[in-house]
Structure formats: C-alpha cells, structure tokens
C-alpha cells in the first residue's frame, strides 16, 4: 500500500500544466491547426498526419516539434508507418510563448500526455534556425 502511494506521488511530481497554458494553446490550435489536424487531433488519412498518439508529438525530441511549427513540413517521410501527402505551412509569426502553448496543448490533449514545452525552448530552436 505504501509502495503504491509512493508511486502515485512520484508520478504526480511533474509540474501540472496550467489551465491558462492549455486555454491559450487551444485557442491557437483552433485557428492554426484544427483545419488540417482536425478537432480530434486525428489528422486525415494519407493527407494530414495525426497528432493524437503520434510518436513525434509525445516522444523525446521537442526541438524537432518546435522546428515543424516554425518551418512547416513538406518532406515525404514515413510517419508511424504511413505517408501523408499534403504540405504543412510555416507558423514562424507565432511568438515563442504561443508556439510553446500550442505544443503543450497538443502534447496533453486527446490520448497524449507529455511534458510542457517552454518559451525558452522555442527561443533556443528559433535562434538556431536563423
């Protein structure tokens, strides 16, 4: 019983994501991302990659995710076993905090659960892209 309590305590030791971050992130998702990635984050088969359950969204490489939002994506690459034909536009006009918030929202919506993305992380990636 003690072991279980310790485990639960350990899991919730990650800093909780604030409601305002999720709210801001969702607002950006609705205007910038929803049209292609859909209201359920499921994408469109063979056209627009899903975000819900996507390994690129929840696995380690935050810098790669940030680069996709800032630069867009048009490569033909296999994404979790599928190919997607449409091109993603760049969203470099979003501020660092906005990019961070929308990525945090995506990483914690639907079935996704992952750590937040910070404005500092976005700033660092953006600096490298110049």
């Amino acid at each position, binding site marked *: 019983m003690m072991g279980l309590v310790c485990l639960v305590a350990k899991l919730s030791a990650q800093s909780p994501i604030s409601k305002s971050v999720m709210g801001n992130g969702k607002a950006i998702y*609705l*205007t*910038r991302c*929803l*049209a*292609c990635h*859909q*209201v*359920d*984050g*499921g*994408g*469109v*088969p*063979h*056209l*627009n990659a*899903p975000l819900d359950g996507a390994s690129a969204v929840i696995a380690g490489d935050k810098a790669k995710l940030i680069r996709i939002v800032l630069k*867009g994506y*048009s490569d*033909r690459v296999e994404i979790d076993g599928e190919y997607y*034909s*449409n*091109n*993603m*536009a*760049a969203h470099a006009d979003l501020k660092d905090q906005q990019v961070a918030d929308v990525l945090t929202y995506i990483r914690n919506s639907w079935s996704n659960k992952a750590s937040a993305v910070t404005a500092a992380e976005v700033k660092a990636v953006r600096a490298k892209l110049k």
Partner: protein
Amino acid sequence: MNLKQSQNNSVLICNFIAQAKPQTHKTTNMRKSISLCLMALGLSITQLFAHSGDSTKLANKAIMPDTDNAGLKLPAGFGALKVADSIGRARHIAITDKGTIYVKLSKLVNGKGIVVLRDNDGDGRTEEKGSFGDFTGTGIAISGKWLYASSDEEVYRYMLTPEGSLVNPMSPQKIITGLINRKQHESKSIALDGKGNIYVNIGAYSNACQEKDRTKGSKGMTPCPILDSAGGIWKFDAEKSNQTYADGKRFATGLRNVVGLDWNKQNNQLFVMQHGRDQLHDLYPDLFDDKASAEKPAETMYALKEGSNAGWPYIYYDPEMKQKIVAPEYGGDGKKVSTDPAFQDPAIAFPAHMAPNALLFYTGNQFPAKYKNGAFVAFHGSWNRAPLPQEGYYVAFVPFENGKPTGQWEVFANGFAGIEVVTGTRGAQHRPCGLAQGPDGSLYVTDDSKGTIYRIMYNGK
C-alpha cells in the same frame, strides 16, 4: 503466346523448381512446392485457368443482398452486399465482361498492388483472391482486351484473355512514364475513350498555386508555373510503350486535381470531377469566415474538350453565387466575378470539399430507366469543413441525357461513414473511392479505408 501456353509455362517453371528440391514423400510435397511457387508469383492454381461458372449466367434474383444492406442506406428497391472485405487500400476498380474484378491498391499488401477477385459459385460474393503488380497507385481501367493501371508516375497495361484473366501478370507493358509526382495530389487516375486514347490526371502539387503552399500571406504565382506539367488532363496513345510528356498532349488545363473521371459513351466526351481548393478562411480570414470556408468552393464536374480550361488557380466556383469568382490569391475578395472567357463553367456544382473520387456514367439495364446514362459520383468525404461537420461519404447520382444533366443531383447510397455526423475525418469507417459497373448492371463501390467492396443491386421491391 496464348493462355494455355502461358499457363503451361508457369506450371512448367514451378514444376522445375519443385523437382530441384530434394523430395521424400514425392507427390504431396511436389503439389505443395508447386502451390508455393505459384503463390509466390501471385497466382493460385485454380486462378490460372478460365472459368465457366461466372455469375453473369445467373439471374439477379439468385443473389441476395446482405440482411443489413452492408450497412448502406439506399433508395427503395435497391439492396447491397459486401462482395469482399479487408483487401487493402482499395482505390479504383475495373470489372471484365465476365465478372472478374480488378482493384488497385494505394498501399502494397504482401508486396502486391493489384487485387483480382472472382465469384465462382455465383452467390455474388467473391471467394477467390489473387494479387500481382509491384506498384501502388489509384487508376485502373479496362479497354478492349487490356487492363490499364497507374502508379503515381507511370501507366501500365496487362493483356487479358477472353475469359478476363491475365495473360502475363509478371510483365505489364509500360505505356507512360516520367509523370510528375511532388507528393500532393499525386494519384494518376485514368480513363480511355475506346478509340486508342488514354486520358491521365496529373494533379497540381499545390493547393492554390501560392509561392509558399498553404501559407497565409503568400501570393499566387502569376502565371501559375505548375500548369505546364500538372493541374490538368494529359492525353496519350493507349498502345505505345514508354511515352513521356513529349509524346502526349495537355488535353485540358486549370484543373486542380481530378481523381474521378469517365468517358461518357452516349455523347463521346470526357467528364471529370475536380477537387476544389482548400482553406479560404485559414488564408484569408478577413474575407471568409468558418462557414464560408466550409461551403466554398464547389466540387465541380466539367465536360471537357481539347483545350478546355477550368480556371484553377485563378478562379474557383462559388456554389451559392453560382459564379466563377476570382481567387483571393489573384486579387479576389470573395465577391469579384471572373469575366475571363477562357475559363469554362462547370456542368454541375456539388457542395464544397466532399472529395469526388470516382465518376461513372451508368449504361446498364438493371437499374430503373432514370439511371440510364446518368452519372454516379463517389464522394470520399471532406476534411476541410472543420470546425463545421464534415460532408460527403456517400455516392450521389445525377440524371443525364446526351451529355447534359437533366435534373438535380441526389444522394444515392449513404451510410459508408458508419456514424451520423463526421467531425474528424478519421472517424469515418468506410470512405467511397472507386466505382464500376458489373456485366449485369450492378454498381460496385470500393472503400479505401477498410478495403470493403460493395455491390449495389436493384431488385424492384
């Protein structure tokens, strides 16, 4: 080489390979080895041989629809059955005059991209399945004694026997090569006029010909450089090998992406369904709100002649205003009507973004008279209507006479999505993609989501 010689060669080759292996229990192992060998060639022993038990000999009455009509909602008197299921990403479909079904896959299954299906016991459902061809793609069509099929860059053809089997599934003739494929709108649907010509869709690799695709603030390119080699229909000889752009001719231009097209035999004309552009609101939020963006532009059908110009990217067709409107990328404001005489009007305008993936002019006699010479359109279903609900995921019908629509379009077969309202596209269970007419006048529909093949029949009740 005739069929018997070809069959004998295949069996001889496999016999030879079987004999080369050490055998203990000779007879059964030999049969097994031959079977395995033929399977490796994508064939089965029974499949090589001509069939006499084809379903065309049996009356429609012998074929019972599924008790739930395969989950479809149809007009009174119609029934449906699942002919085959889970065959892979089933795109377009072609059926021989003896009822052999060929389906093109856009993803390889066991390394093969074309599936052949046969119903040998005449119950309407296929129980025999084979596959061949090592390329993915969408287009497939039968003309004369040839089965044509396309990848995203090339077009091939296979000779058929009088029974509708393949003379040599291992060696198609490559008739067209080098077609541009830049990922977006890459499928190369095909149609033939039966007079020695093949028409190939080369979709534009762009949404609206902006300098930066799908990017707010990016201008439309003037003139649109894509049109010289994409964004239109190209016409080639249906027989010559290894044709490239130089051997063909741009038959029609200004067409963003045509997945569904068909030759109307009644008035001898090519008809196409265009996938209209996306994201009016994302790109021009000041001109178009979510609702306008969800409902414009129309999905349009065009009756084409050589030199036809449907106007993409410079205009789009507004189904509410019933006009060709100057695209915002080219100075439009959502209201400015185009006056350019070069751009033709659609034959019919359908609701926006529904993704017409197949077009079929019905020439059969099984369905009631109103359907004869009319057009069936398979709508794959929208994604670009979000945040409003999606539309489509059904087969529509428009009556035609001598190349002109004679009435309003209507929904013919619905229920493919399996849910009442589709909000996110991945929620749709089945998505209609291909259409074909069977030798008895049944309508076949493919689904590239679950690989289901539907057969819709009229039983007059």
